[in-house]
């Protein structure tokens, strides 16, 4: 029964994360042809996940918040599609910029999350 409880918590957290991603991602403009919506949710989500990972906050929030909400808030499929689509349209430069910025910003986000957790 424990796994069913976990599944329910993950699902509830996940549906909230998906809605937040839909709203935040949709509110972001495309800057010079670069899709910034996915970049924004991925960076924010990685930052928060890193903070929770390195902070001393108890593990009772792990299912709904980290696995559910943050796992759903950040996404890989749309990122992969957008990167491919830019390449398909012949913008290898934009495609590479999209990949590099997602990886770089999220690594910086993870670093900042760790920093915040050690300071608090």
């Amino acid at each position, binding site marked *: 029964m424990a*796994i069913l409880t*976990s*599944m329910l918590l*993950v*699902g*509830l*957290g*996940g*549906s*909230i*994360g*998906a*809605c937040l*991603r*839909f*709203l935040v991602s949709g509110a972001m403009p495309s800057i010079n042809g670069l899709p910034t919506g996915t970049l924004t949710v*991925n960076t924010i*989500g*990685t930052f*928060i*996940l*890193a903070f929770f*990972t390195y902070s001393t906050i108890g593990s009772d929030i792990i*299912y709904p918040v980290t*696995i*559910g909400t*943050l*796992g*759903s*808030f*950040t*996404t*890989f*499929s*749309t*990122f*992969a*599609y957008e*990167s*491919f689509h830019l*390449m*398909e349209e012949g913008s290898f430069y934009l495609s590479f910029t999209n*990949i590099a910025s*997602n*990886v770089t910003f*999220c*690594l910086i*986000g*993870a670093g900042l999350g760790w920093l915040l957790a050690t300071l608090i």
Partner: protein
Amino acid sequence: MKIPLPVFYVAVGGFLGSVSRFLVFEWLYNPIDTFFVNVAGSFLLGLLIYYFEYTGSSYSQLKLFLGIGFMGSFTTFSTFIMQTVTMNPLLAMANVAGNIGIAMFVVYLARTGSFLYQRRVW
């Protein structure tokens, strides 16, 4: 309270997608599980987008439910990065290149498959 309909589709898809990811994580080992969900989800999203693009039919509700909701929640970027930062530099680079390269390649496969299916060239 009246929920706006697009958000409802995304929420239900998000619920199912995150539970599916959680179950994959229960079965496979890190970071293979992340690689699996990211590649599988990217392929299915590519299939969804290109199939409808080539057939020219409208799929706004399906896109909200399956694309943004389910696949968006099934695949994840935050866990992928958090696993990457705990690896040694060489493995981390291989993890980044492998996840992104193969995910983009399967989107290409999904596009090719959708195109061939629509043309029925076999």
